[in-house]
């Protein structure tokens, strides 16, 4: 089952505070106390019945995958499930003995369920539309009449897509009620490989955070790789071999996606791995102008190129700190096998971040600019990458994957709480997501081979 993932704003702050104590890295996401939530299945009337499985699964995965709640198992719920807020009765009037309970709020807040909150609601067809009414009930408030923490109506198309969208919207509203913002509406860009060994094809695709609505951006029938999204989500830049040597191409992400003019330097045998500055006005990239390869910066249309590094020791994957815009993380072979480095955006104060062991690559800045997710072979064979997160100031790190195949290409979600990455643990490269403590690992793609995900707006 695929699960959508969500973000919370508060998590970033928590991450920063708790990262100061390395041993607490593992609880940075789930934190100490999170509310317990009961999410009984909604029932549907008439035509809407056919889509309730999708609705209920989506709602559960969204809330569970968000990491914001302790989800209570459905087996622990009372027998009678209210369908709307007014179905709740005052405790003394609610249940006849032997009814199995459920109509009193205390039936949900007391053992075995022990929920802080419960979601109730139903779906019904209306003018051939899928209409959901949903409530979030705060079980700490004794009077049912005042316990509706949220009451909303969602009107969507009468199909699976509509049911899924209604569930996403309801879970978004619930998350927002807890000060979290949802990731529904953000996009993951990635590369799908196909073709043969002799004639491989790699195209840029996008999808929703739960792996749904996959959409092909490029149709070159050639090799295109390493997508990067502009901060506003309107453009995707990538490396393409469509005209021979690797060069940078840029597409708008609208519908349909269109190529945007980008000037590549003539005569460079490598112009690759672009990424945007936080203001979206410039692109940093890897270039072989003057020897392979240095980090360069140019305007978003490719004009005004100048070098940031001059060492020519295979510098790659430059990523500008999204918070400050003033420093660049990159990988380089300047001290031997590939390692991670940081420098100021003018090329000064280059420092190695990883300790020289193994190979380290794929830096991805946390939105707060303090953490880097990256792939590292430390403790494993050459090429056997796992995902790590480093506190850049302190240089301490945690390991999120542990040899379940190769795990590479981490990219932070806009919430700073989730990561998307590539893993070949199923035998083929596929896109996965997880919470930044390494839990809730979810496979998002299954068709073909998919890699190099990047999470944008």
């Amino acid at each position, binding site marked *: 089952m695929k699960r959508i993932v969500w973000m919370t704003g508060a998590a970033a702050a928590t991450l920063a505070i708790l990262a100061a104590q390395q041993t607490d890295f593992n609880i940075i996401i789930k934190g100490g106390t999170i509310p317990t939530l009961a999410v009984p299945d909604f029932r549907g009337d008439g035509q809407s019945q056919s889509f309730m499985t999708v609705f209920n699964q989506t709602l559960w995965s969204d809330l569970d995958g968000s990491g914001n709640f302790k989800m209570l198992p459905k087996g622990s719920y009372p027998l009678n499930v209210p369908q709307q807020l007014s179905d709740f009765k005052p405790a003394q009037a609610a249940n006849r003995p032997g009814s199995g309970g459920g109509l009193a709020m205390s039936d949900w807040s007391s053992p075995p369920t022990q929920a802080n909150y419960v979601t109730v609601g139903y779906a019904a067809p209306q003018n051939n539309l899928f209409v959901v009414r949903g409530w979030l009930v705060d079980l700490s408030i004794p009077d049912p009449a005042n316990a509706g923490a949220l009451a909303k109506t969602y009107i969507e198309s009468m199909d699976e897509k509509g049911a899924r969208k209604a569930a996403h919207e309801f879970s978004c509203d619930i998350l927002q009620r807890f000060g979290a913002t949802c990731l529904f509406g953000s996009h993951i860009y990635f590369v799908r490989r196909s073709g043969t*060994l002799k004639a491989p094809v790699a195209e840029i695709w996008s999808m929703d955070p739960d792996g749904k609505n996959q959409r092909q951006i490029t149709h070159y029938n050639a090799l295109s790789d390493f997508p990067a999204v502009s901060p506003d989500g309107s453009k995707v830049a990538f490396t393409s071999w469509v005209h021979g040597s690797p060069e940078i191409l840029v597409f708008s992400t609208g519908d349909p996606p269109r190529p945007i003019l980008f000037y590549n330097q003539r005569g460079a045998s490598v112009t*690759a791995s672009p990424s945007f500055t936080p203001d979206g006005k410039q692109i940093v990239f890897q270039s072989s102008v003057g020897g*392979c390869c240095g980090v360069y910066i140019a305007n978003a249309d490719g004009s005004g190129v100048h070098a940031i590094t001059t060492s020519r020791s295979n510098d790659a994957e430059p990523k500008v700190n999204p918070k400050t815009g003033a420093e660049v993380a990159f*990988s380089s072979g300047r001290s031997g096998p590939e390692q991670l480095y940081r420098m100021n955006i003018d090329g000064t104060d280059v420092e190695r971040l990883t300790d020289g062991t193994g190979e380290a690559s794929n830096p991805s800045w946390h939105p707060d600019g303090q953490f880097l997710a990256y792939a590292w072979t430390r403790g494993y064979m050459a090429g056997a990458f796992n995902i790590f997160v480093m506190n850049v100031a302190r240089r301490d790190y945690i390991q999120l994957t542990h040899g379940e195949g190769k795990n590479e290409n981490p990219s932070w979600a806009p919430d700073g709480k989730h990561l998307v990455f590539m893993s070949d643990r199923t035998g083929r490269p596929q896109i996965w997501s997880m919470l930044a403590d390494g839990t809730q690992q979810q496979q998002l793609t299954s068709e073909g081979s998919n890699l190099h995900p990047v999470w944008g707006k």
Partner: protein
Amino acid sequence: MFSKRKITFICLAISLALIAEGCKKKVPAPPPPPPPAPATAPAAATPSAPVVAQFTAEPSTIQRGQSVTLRWEVSGETSNVSINNGIGTVRSTGSQQVTPTSSTTYTLTATGPGGTITSSATVTVVTTPPPAPNPPSTTAASHATVEQRISSEIQDAFFDYDKSEVNGGARDALTRDAAALKAILAEFPNATITVEGHCDERGSAEYNIGLGDRRASSAKDFLVSLGVPGDRLKTISYGKERPQCTESSESCWQKNRRAHFSPGQ
């Protein structure tokens, strides 16, 4: 027409408003059980025989060894459409290439509830006269393309892990390649040749673009030092995007850490 639509729209709007209003107060009943299955299947329409709208063989006359495209289109209700002479059951619309060795009549048979219908297409195969001998040539090689010459005469040069220096084995390979490349470039004065740099699956894909470029460049530099004209050698790094094998073993990795040669674009 327009006014009818307008009335429908107004009715719809009113009923929508009513339903929406009702919804705030009324609880929908728990979902009713699904309706019973219909007692009888709807009466089937009287079946009509299928119609062969098209069945052609193009070209209808060929020389032995050439192929012919059969195209067919059957309309109406069918339970089976087949073509004899070893083709068998096919979709109701389609095409297929066949290479009959002698004149053949293909018969398409379409069967449906309304009956069976057939249609035929004949292909005439004429025997080819023996080809004229090839005109004598100055050198046998002049018939080979640049691509053929490269694939038969030029070897890959292999590199050590995470290295782009031309080492012992690669020196030998490139030294032999240099002589062959000079000959090919002399024979095809307009040709350019691409030196491709490739990497094994280890290391990040981004880093390997640079590594592949360095391998291609050092192979080129070495060839130029042996007198191969540098302005006719281009380099392209494919990083680890185009491996020739995908196993996670040293023997496969070694095959992929290479400089490879292809005709220039």
